[in-house]
């Protein structure tokens, strides 16, 4: 119980800190996806052959930006908490965890607004949409696993955050968000299949956009990736955590 209060307090701190000095606060979170949406409309829409293109892109973008924000924030979460780590006896995984929870909160708000706006863009309101919550849960645990990995390694090698910021755009374009999966040359399909984010975006999009529910196989893939990533992150983090204080 005490731990829940602590994680809550830290998550709240993250949300306060993120919007502290920005005038439009929370709404800033919408501008980035909006900008990307506009770019995609200009570049891809006319010959994409995708029906209801705006809904198609937006459902992918929301999930992508959750992922991109949460990893970008968490990578420095341990290094950024030196003061607290050195003065209180709190488990260090609280820091990446509370970053993930703070961003999850953001995603839920975004999703709410998305559900309202997509009324004008042909969203099919259906009880099936609720499946997005288990999907988000899987994606969030996956992201948490990655965050545990990134934030702990970053303590020892500060260039991890730079490397991660460089890889991110490449991952973004390797994920079919603005274009249809079918438009990829089958020769290169392999690369897309290697991209773990692809499976989560695809699952989310099946729920929000496709007329048929996602297959069990899709859920299974995501579950396996999610557990695998969490296991790796947890392993690396617990190996390194005892030396955090000496390295930061």
């Amino acid at each position, binding site marked *: 119980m*005490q731990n829940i*209060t*602590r994680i*809550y*307090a*830290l998550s*709240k*701190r993250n949300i*306060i*800190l993120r919007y*502290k000095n920005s005038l439009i606060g929370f709404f800033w979170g919408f501008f980035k996806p909006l900008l990307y949406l506009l770019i995609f409309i200009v570049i891809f829409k006319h010959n994409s052959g995708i029906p209801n293109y705006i809904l198609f892109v937006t459902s992918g973008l929301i999930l992508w930006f959750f992922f991109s924000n949460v990893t970008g924030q968490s990578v420095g979460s341990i290094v950024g908490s*030196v*003061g*607290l*780590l*050195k*003065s*209180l*006896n*709190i488990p260090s995984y609280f820091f990446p965890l509370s970053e993930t929870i703070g961003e999850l909160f953001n995603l839920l708000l975004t999703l709410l607004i998305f559900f309202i706006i997509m009324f004008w863009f042909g969203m099919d309101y259906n009880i099936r949409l609720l499946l997005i919550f288990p999907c988000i849960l899987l994606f969030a645990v996956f992201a948490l696993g990655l965050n545990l990995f990134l934030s702990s390694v970053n303590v*020892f*090698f*500060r*260039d*991890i955050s730079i*490397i991660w910021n460089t890889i991110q755009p490449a991952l973004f374009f390797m994920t079919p968000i603005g274009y249809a999966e079918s438009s990829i040359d089958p020769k290169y399909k392999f690369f897309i299949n290697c991209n773990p984010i692809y499976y989560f975006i695809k699952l989310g999009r099946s729920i929000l956009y496709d007329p048929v529910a996602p297959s069990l196989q899709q859920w299974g893939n995501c579950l396996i990736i999610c557990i695998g990533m969490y296991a790796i992150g947890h392993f690396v983090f617990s190996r390194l955590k*005892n*030396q955090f*204080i*000496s*390295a930061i």
Partner: protein
Amino acid sequence: MNSDIIIKLENVHVSFWQNNVGVYSLKDLITQRKSPFKSKTIINDISFEVKRGESLGIVGRNGSGKSTLLRTIAGIIKPKAGIVTVNGTFAPILAIGAGLEQELTGYENITLLLSLYGIPRKNTNAVANIREFSELSDEALRMPVKQYSSGMVARLAFSISLANDSDILIIDEVLAVGDQGFQIKCVEKIRQIKNQGKTILFVSHFPDGVRDICDNAILLEQGEITHRGLAADICEQYKMLF
């Protein structure tokens, strides 16, 4: 364990990974082909006991391992070998405001640290006590901590660490930057806490303060205890180091 004893250290060793010279990034690791870290012993085979209600002074040169020892006792650093047994609760170690969040205001810091320390947020009494003891104005507490002077930071940090009613008070150099008025007030408060029967671990570079507050003391040199005994005697030893 005897219930009189609140803290017990048995053959405690702490070592840190230190960066091998010049290896800070993956690029260095790949190009220099040497192991990125080496282990360095910071606390070397320390054993001692603290009785409930005792106040123990810890003195020593800069870098002798005092802060590390305090953090090990508080459970913030895990020892590499040896056993640390503690039979009580701690206040946060806010050595010169290290635990304060620069971007948050004084009030936000208070709320954050209180909830991290398990004091319910509804406890407005705690907030009032902190404000009163720190003598910071309402206006100052609404400012981000990064705009505070170092004395103001110390006032806030020390007041927060007093706020939770813990069994063990750990004081690491907090008095160094406060003005005279605040120093006197702190010493007064520490005495009062001591009289309530609380245990105090006191790190300071001022032998007079140590003699004043502590019953016993230990002198650390390079992570080892070289002298232990009555605070007054140890303070003499400490002065002889220089």
